[in-house]
């Protein structure tokens, strides 16, 4: 989509009654951001705890599939909360995100992080022998866990940076 078309779309979105209501009711945006951050806290912490378990830093006395089963399923329903609050925030101030490269970087990183989380969940449920895997398996696991930690940190950084890189 060209910038001009996107700009027009933002203009149209910003003129809708819902957008206006979100923008002009003082407490709505901070309230949505608070819910959004709380959701991020849940997903981020869940992913980090499982990644730290892969590295045997957290709860190494509990099998990895058990730790993953405790923390990863919650990611998906909370993701829905993030999509709803995030969409409402975009509706309120479309140009802030939709005309902002940082926002697309955040979405790209999110796709990577979710793919990693989904892949880990799937591999643990479909291959119960994961833990008995050899050296190659362990290196793959740790590489994926490290990538996951870095990607989630990147998402949080990009999220905060949207406020500093928004179009005028």
């Amino acid at each position, binding site marked *: 989509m060209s910038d001009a078309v996107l700009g027009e779309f933002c203009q149209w979105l910003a003129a809708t009654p819902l957008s206006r209501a979100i923008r002009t009711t003082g407490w709505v945006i*901070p309230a949505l951001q608070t819910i959004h951050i709380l959701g991020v*806290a849940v997903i981020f912490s869940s992913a980090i705890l499982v990644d730290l378990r892969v590295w045997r830093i957290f709860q190494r006395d509990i099998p990895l599939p058990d730790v993953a089963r405790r923390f990863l399923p919650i990611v998906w329903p909370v993701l829905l909360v993030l999509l709803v609050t995030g969409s409402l925030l975009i509706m309120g101030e479309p140009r802030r995100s939709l005309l902002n490269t940082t926002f697309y970087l955040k979405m790209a990183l999110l796709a990577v992080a979710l793919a990693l989380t989904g892949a880990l969940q799937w591999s643990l449920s479909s291959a119960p022998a994961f833990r008995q895997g050899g050296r190659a398996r362990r290196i793959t696991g740790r590489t994926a866990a490290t990538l996951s930690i870095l990607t989630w940190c990147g998402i949080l950084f990009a999220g905060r*940076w949207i406020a500093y890189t928004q179009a005028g």
Partner: protein
Amino acid sequence: MPRLADLIAPLESSGLADAIRENDLLFPLIESVHVLSICLVVGSILVVDLRLLGLASTNQPVSRVTRGILPLTWSAFVVAVASGGLMFISNATKYLGNGYFVAKLLLIGAAGVNMAVFHAVGARDLPRWDNESAPPLRARLAGGFSIVLWIAVVACGRWIGFTMQVG
């Protein structure tokens, strides 16, 4: 509070505070680290709170959950305080004049007191109910208070950004 003002004046005029105020990247960078560490504090402490409430990790003893989680919570808390402190000294006077900032500090203090009281009184007989999926009322209250207080801390933090202009 003249004494407090005397204390913060040298911090606010320090070279470090100057740098944070004037460098375009430093403030958002510190702020990002702050958000990241707060997320870990809140997310990890929620794991403990939900266990105290008997709502999650109930197949593990309470002490095992806290032993696993709290080192991460405390590490993240140290980073949150350090990054928060750096943002604070860059505009100390303005922050102290902001009601949400003061409320945030008081709420963190309340969360600390809640935890300390639970530790000293509520969890004294922990070995007796460590394995129970539903801990006694005082433990559930401590977990519930903690969740409410930390949600309020995050809300105040976000509201600070909308009620004062810095950076």
